[in-house]
């Protein structure tokens, strides 16, 4: 299952969040060699705030995959670090959210976990009335994303950053897109789970 973790229920997921930050460190700093902030072997940056939503795929307490979502009303990677990746004004709306740090953990026990996290992003967006999800992707992966059936549009030209080419993109959220993706990945049931912290009645 993919768990929605926000500021209200994050104390229920202390272990999962810690594993996620470690896994982000291994993936983005260790393997991809991105120059990011790190604290004690964990990749945590200024966009990990109380406004951030994490979608974490975990089973038996082991985190397989995750992504974070931030409303572009708040500071995001695209609107603060890489606004130049957009040909027009970078998105800034409660209806447009940014997805970042999406990855499959190198310790994942289930290779389909990332697929579930992708679907979870669509489910979450539909539930919240989010109309678009924006993100930055390696340019060479664009044909794969376009052919996967996402209604995906570039927001600007491919741009070189530190020797690699990246591009900002947007996906239109719709129930049709969710159906298409569920059919494609043969996942017919919702993957998203939200466990609220219900206070005990005295």
């Amino acid at each position, binding site marked *: 299952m993919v768990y929605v973790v926000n500021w209200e229920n994050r104390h229920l997921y202390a272990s999962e969040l810690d594993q996620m930050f470690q896994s982000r460190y291994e993936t983005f700093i260790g393997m*991809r*060699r*991105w*120059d*990011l*902030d790190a604290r004690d072997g964990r990749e945590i*940056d*200024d*966009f990990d705030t109380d406004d951030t939503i994490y979608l974490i795929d975990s089973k038996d307490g082991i985190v397989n995959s995750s992504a974070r979502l931030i409303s572009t009303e708040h*500071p995001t*990677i695209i*609107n*603060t*670090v890489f*606004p*130049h990746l*957009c*040909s*027009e*004004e*970078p998105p*800034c709306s409660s209806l447009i959210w940014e997805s970042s740090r999406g990855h499959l953990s190198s310790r994942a026990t289930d290779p389909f976990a990332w697929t579930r996290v992708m679907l979870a992003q669509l489910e979450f967006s539909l539930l919240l009335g989010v109309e678009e999800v924006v993100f*930055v992707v390696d*340019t*060479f*992966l*664009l*044909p*794969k994303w*376009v*052919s996967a059936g996402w*209604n*995906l*549009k*570039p*927001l*600007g*030209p*491919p741009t070189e*950053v*530190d020797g*690699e*080419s*990246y591009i900002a993109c947007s996906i239109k959220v719709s129930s049709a897109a969710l159906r298409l993706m569920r059919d494609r990945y043969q996942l017919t049931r919702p993957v998203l789970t939200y466990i609220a912290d219900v206070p005990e009645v005295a």
Partner: protein
Amino acid sequence: MGVQKEKLVQVPRIENGIGLMAGFDIRVIQEFADESLRATSQDDIVEKFRKESRQFGFDYFVALSLCDLADPPEDVVWVDQSPKGWDQIYIKNDFQNVDPYFAAAVKQRLPFVWSDCLDRVQRSKGVAQPTHDMLDEAASFGYGDGISIPMLIPGTHRGCVSLTGERPDLSQGPRHTIHLMAIYLFEACLRINKSALREWKAKEFIALTDREKHTLQLLGSGLNASDISEVLKVSEPTVRYYIKNAKQKLGANNVTHAVAKAMLYGHIEI
């Protein structure tokens, strides 16, 4: 992605003019993307791409799956807008084996300009005579400099869209425009081809007899087995035999399913 640490900074205002790049209009590209994602005809989207690329001096292009061009498998993209006769000369002379751009497209992940590619080959191992011969022959067909855009899509053959012309504009804006449009062109061709192939295979390999088709046609019109036996002037068990065979061939669960599938594959029209 790491030159600049991801520090929280003030959202910068995009002043007028910032983000403008000659030959690159994101809205035109997004419109092309919209059209191609909805496209059901390969010819239409190829024609649209041809018009867009012509603006930048690209007279010719191909969108191909990188496979043995002399004997391509059936589930491939094959759009050939090269000058008349060039494809035959290319295949007849086995130019695929000496074509430096084909070799680069098999290895590279990102678009490359042909003259840059040739420079790299020249610097590393030199350009062999057969390659020179191929390039001379290509020039006689109106091939100048060009660009190739590799397509890496899991589960399909590696692909490539290549464009050329006598004097194409290979500055940054047109390069990015063509790069992004080519990705959508390739997606549309791949999707439309797969769908056409599925339909063709369905028709080709499900060989219904004329009697079976006629029976399904009549069932679709609302007749039952008894009515059909009168129309076809055969016994009712014979009609049931036709229905059973048709259901089996179509892999249908029931009569309605068989009629629907026969319609879908174009065996009958109701």
